[in-house]
């Protein structure tokens, strides 16, 4: 199957010494949702700008549906839509007018224009406010309008740079519900940058973690979390301690990596807690050991990030900064 995105050894150097991207390679299947997760300054936006043909790589190649983003830029631009991180609609005209201007720029035929515009307005939940000036919109509405603009042409791939930055949780949820619906209807590939771990985890099929211009790991959220070292199953038993033989037998169960016993607490390190739990329960039953309490602890993407990037993603500072910028621009 044709790759939606194929990046090979891309390096981008700004001002002759800053390596924003330091040898990035990446392949994304068509029709999937891909999240590029990383902290501020990791190179997420730079990679997206290369893929959307805004800038060229210093070395290496990037392909979108097999088309070179440098040599075949104008072909690429016909297949993609892009929502930049910054606000990208005109605030001094109405939402409908924004869509109308973009539909004309995209060359949507006159007789289809109205239908398509109403369609995206409807699907982004903006129909009732479409004739209001954009400067009266809330942040979430502006974001949805921006996405609506990007959906006018039914792109083969949609690039979203921090799609929900500065939005409150309920607005974020609405934005993603609409995006998922659109993807279901049209099979659009979605490539998004984010520093929200939950967003990457809930909505994407594949996650790559980027730090300091390098992709440090890539996989599904489950794979990534497993790679941290496994899940923890914690039992509290009604009696103190386990017999040496019992312990040995336990260690023999497949999938158990480690067992630690301390008084009535027994802690297992396992690959897949849900899979192994019934086995352990059956085992304890057979041995007439009564279990009072069980808990499962799973690694989070934050642990994954910590393992591969060596730091945690710091969200707070960045978020307020961007919200501030967006507000400033709106006042503009």
């Amino acid at each position, binding site marked *: 199957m044709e790759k939606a995105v194929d990046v090979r050894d891309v390096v981008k150097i700004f001002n002759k010494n800053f390596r924003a991207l330091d040898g990035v390679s990446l392949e994304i299947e068509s029709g999937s949702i891909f999240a590029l997760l990383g902290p501020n300054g990791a190179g997420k936006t730079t990679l997206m*700008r290369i893929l*959307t*043909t*805004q*800038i060229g790589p210093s070395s290496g190649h990037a392909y979108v549906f097999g088309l070179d983003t440098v040599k075949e830029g*104008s072909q690429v*631009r*016909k297949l*993609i*839509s*892009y*929502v*930049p*991180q*910054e*606000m*990208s*609609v*005109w605030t*001094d*005209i*109405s939402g409908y*007018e924004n869509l109308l*201007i*973009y539909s*004309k*720029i*995209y*060359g949507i035929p006159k007789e289809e224009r109205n239908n398509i515009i109403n369609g995206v307005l409807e699907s982004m939940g903006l129909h009732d406010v479409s004739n209001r*000036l954009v400067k009266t919109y809330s942040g979430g509405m502006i974001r949805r309008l921006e996405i609506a*603009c990007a959906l006018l042409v039914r792109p083969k791939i949609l690039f979203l740079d921090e799609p929900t930055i500065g939005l409150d949780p309920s607005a974020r949820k609405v934005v993603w519900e609409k995006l998922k619906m659109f993807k279901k209807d049209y099979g659009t590939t979605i490539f998004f940058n984010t520093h929200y771990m939950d967003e990457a985890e809930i909505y994407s099929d594949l996650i790559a973690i980027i730090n300091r211009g390098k992709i440090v790991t890539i996989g599904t959220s489950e794979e990534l979390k497993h790679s941290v070292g496994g899940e923890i199953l914690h039992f509290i038993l009604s009696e103190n301690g386990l017999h040496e033989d019992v312990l040995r037998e336990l260690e023999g169960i497949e999938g158990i990596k480690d067992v630690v016993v301390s008084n009535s607490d027994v802690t297992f390190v396992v690959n897949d807690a849900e899979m192994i739990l019934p086995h352990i329960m059956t085992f304890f039953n057979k041995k007439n050991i009564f279990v009072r309490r069980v808990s499962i602890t799973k690694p989070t993407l934050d642990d994954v990030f910590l393992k591969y990037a060596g730091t945690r993603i710091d969200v707070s500072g960045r978020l307020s900064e961007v919200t501030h910028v967006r507000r400033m*621009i709106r006042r*503009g």
Partner: protein
Amino acid sequence: MLKDFFRTFSSMIELEFRRLKHDRTEIYSRAVQPILWLAVYGPIMGSIRAIPTGNIPYTDFITPGVLIQSTTFISIFYGLTIVWERESGILKKLLVTPAPRYATVIGRAMASGIRAIFQTFIIILVALIIGVKFILNPFYFVLALVIIFFSSGGFAAISILVASFMKTRERFMGIGQALTMPLFFASNALYPVTMMPKALQYFATINPMSYVVDAVRSLIISGDLTNLWLDIVAIAIFNIIMFTLASVNFKKIIE
């Protein structure tokens, strides 16, 4: 190719119309200064008869000059919109559409001409009230409007070019001022070029504003069309150069 160009071009023009439909404050507030030139400066300077303007009253003489100064200011400060769009993500998004980049640049530049035409109507109305006598030839008048519209695009292209270097509003404002005033004073807007020191006269001959003022003056005030073709050719060359430079540099604006 040509179809893509016109599609983008007309979208940009339409955008400007729609913006003006919602908010015309800028047009009105920018009309204050030219009105002062016409209503105060014109009659006072005219009364001392120090400037040889042939048999044309002084206020009538400077009306095209003040008009073009005002439309040029609008065009040059139009670059501010581009700087704002650079700070926001609009330019990035436009560059990622299939629209040809030079069409985006020329379309945006010419869109300033829409504002210029609005401004023209206001100033002509004020000039009529003051008592300026215009040549009553609809064909000449329309041609003057076309020249104003077209040349505004050239001046706006200068500002887009400047905007691709000056990436903040403050710096842009400074450069904008530094550009517009010399263009205005070293032109034939307020006095005939022959009155200037030799050095300035040379500058005036390469100053695009002189040609625009001369063309518009000949069409709406003096009726002397001897230099009209020269003016039109000069304006066309100026526009082509500016459109080319601005288009070539436009990619820089988002880097």
